[in-house]
């Protein structure tokens, strides 16, 4: 039995693990990826002969990763998936873990969920075509696998990370046909203006501004107030990507312009990965600017389930600095809950980081909140796929809504028309389904609720279950 089991080795999980290990507690960290770092610090594999990747502008990343990898009290289990949280009849909590073939049960006195976030899915005609990818996919292939996705690429989205991605692609030799940003550039200028107000937390903004210079130098069309509307492909030909001018509310004005590319990289925001928290019974709350459904917690990052704590993007997507700070504070709180006090200097440092990152996160979130209604509007055409796995279309969802006036929740829609029943377990349709229900009934998205998560939260071989009994 470990003192603490941590799910996720991103900035939040690593920071938490180090606080706990330094307090003398035994920690096990499980992550599906091959190495520590999480989404933001994805780095090349060891076989490529390098230890580190590019962490700019996060100066603290290198030390964090090295300290984490070298601490003797931290046990790591990479390439393993936590597929559920269990409680045995004696009340002992444990993680159900699969390595892809076998299962194991990891018991711990406390659990820290630091599972991060994924690119927010947006359904529109053609979003399931091969070559349409999330910005995170295109970026991680480049950063960690040194694979450039396509010669000709279109980048479309609304988050400042799109600019950073565009610059990274250009510097790697890609040809960008266009960069389409749903918002106006003033958003980004405002961003520049807020910089001096938030010392120490300017990283992502400064990177975005640096990226704009690279984009200008390469003379890539930077289309403002322009939203994706559809993608088509004939045979093995290029993707034909329609981009449409929108107003300040992201409503279409004028006709679409078509661009050809091999790959379309989409980035309208991030969705917190809350499935383990849901399955374990932690309460969620709706926070649109924070990415949608976030996990409820107290000032110590403890959830309603008393052994379970959360840190990082699941409390609201707010960037690497914030995830790091939350990991520190959560780690200290967990140590405290196990009767181990922390060094007062460390506590002060963590609290100070948390406070400054909070202001930054607030600015960032309100400035870049996606317009969920406008995005869900892109899915209205009846043939548009909403659930990628089960291939449930907009028309099927609309029929279900029309035939069942009492169908007012995402969960009910799942039962009624199978959307969300596939292998991704609803991660890629929940947001669209909820927004469409809200539009249909003229209510708020939050009222449509969220899907429930069950064991296994990610599909695992049947054998992995059987092993849990031992």
């Amino acid at each position: 039995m470990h003192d603490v089991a941590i799910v996720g080795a991103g900035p939040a999980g690593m920071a938490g693990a180090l606080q706990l290990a330094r307090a003398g507690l035994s920690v096990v960290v499980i992550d599906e990826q091959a190495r520590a770092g999480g989404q933001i610090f994805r780095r090349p594999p060891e076989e490529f002969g390098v230890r580190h990747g590019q962490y700019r502008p996060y100066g603290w990343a290198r030390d964090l990763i090295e300290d984490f990898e070298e601490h003797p009290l931290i046990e790591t289990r990479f390439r393993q998936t936590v597929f559920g949280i269990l409680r045995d009849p004696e009340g002992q909590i444990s993680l159900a873990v699969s390595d892809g073939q076998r299962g194991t049960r990891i018991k711990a006195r406390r659990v820290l969920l630091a599972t991060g976030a994924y690119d927010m899915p947006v359904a529109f005609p053609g979003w399931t075509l091969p070559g349409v990818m999330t910005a995170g996919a295109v970026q991680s292939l480049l950063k960690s696998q040194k694979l450039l996705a396509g010669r000709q690429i279109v980048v479309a989205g609304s988050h400042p990370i799109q600019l950073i991605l565009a610059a990274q692609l250009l510097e790697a030799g890609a040809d960008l046909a266009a960069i389409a940003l749903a918002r106006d550039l003033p958003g980004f200028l405002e961003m520049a203006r807020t910089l001096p107000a938030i010392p120490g937390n300017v990283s992502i903004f400064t990177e975005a501004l640096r990226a704009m210079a690279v984009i200008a130098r390469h003379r890539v069309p930077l289309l403002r107030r322009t939203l994706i509307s559809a993608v088509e492909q004939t045979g093995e030909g290029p993707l034909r990507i329609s981009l449409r001018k929108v107003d300040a509310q992201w409503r279409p004005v004028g006709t679409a312009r078509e661009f050809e590319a091999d790959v379309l990289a989409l980035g309208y925001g991030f969705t917190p990965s809350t499935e383990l928290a849901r399955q374990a019974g932690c309460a969620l709350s709706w926070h649109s600017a924070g990415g949608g459904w976030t996990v409820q917690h107290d000032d110590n990052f403890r959830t309603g389930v008393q052994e379970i704590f959360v840190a990082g993007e699941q409390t609201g997507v707010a960037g690497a600095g914030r995830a790091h700070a939350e990991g520190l504070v959560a780690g200290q709180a967990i140590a405290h809950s196990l009767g181990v006090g922390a060094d007062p200097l460390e506590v002060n440092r963590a609290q100070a980081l948390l406070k400054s990152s909070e202001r930054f996160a607030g600015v960032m979130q309100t400035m870049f909140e996606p317009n969920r209604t406008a995005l869900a509007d892109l899915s209205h055409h009846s043939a548009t796929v909403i659930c990628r796995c089960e291939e449930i279309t907009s028309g099927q969802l609309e029929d279900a809504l029309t035939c069942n006036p009492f169908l007012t929740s995402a969960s009910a829609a799942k039962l009624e028309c199978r959307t969300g029943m596939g292998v991704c377990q609803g991660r890629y349709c929940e947001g669209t389904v909820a927004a469409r229900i809200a539009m249909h009934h003229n209510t708020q998205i939050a009222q449509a609720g969220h899907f429930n998560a069950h064991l296994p939260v990610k599909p695992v071989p049947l054998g992995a279950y059987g092993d849990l009994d031992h």
Partner: protein
Amino acid sequence: MANFHRLPVARGRPVRFTFEGAPVDSFAGETLATALLAAQVGAFGHTREGNPRLPFCNMGTCFDCAVQVDGRGLVRACLTDVVEGMVVNMQEIK
């Protein structure tokens, strides 16, 4: 038509495996997703309705990159490294 290509950096030693019976050359440290994309594979599998799928998220959440590896189904290519002699097939009906 996708057009993925490797940047010229140091990679691991050569690794050969098969996809749908045909040999694929790759390098140690690469994921199956990278190796298959670099080989310009047009589909990692198909949906119930026969539509092709390529990786979408590359971070383990979407399952669009799922393939069959040595007879095991629903293996995420983005989280699985290439291994010499691995037998990889499309994941039909995800």
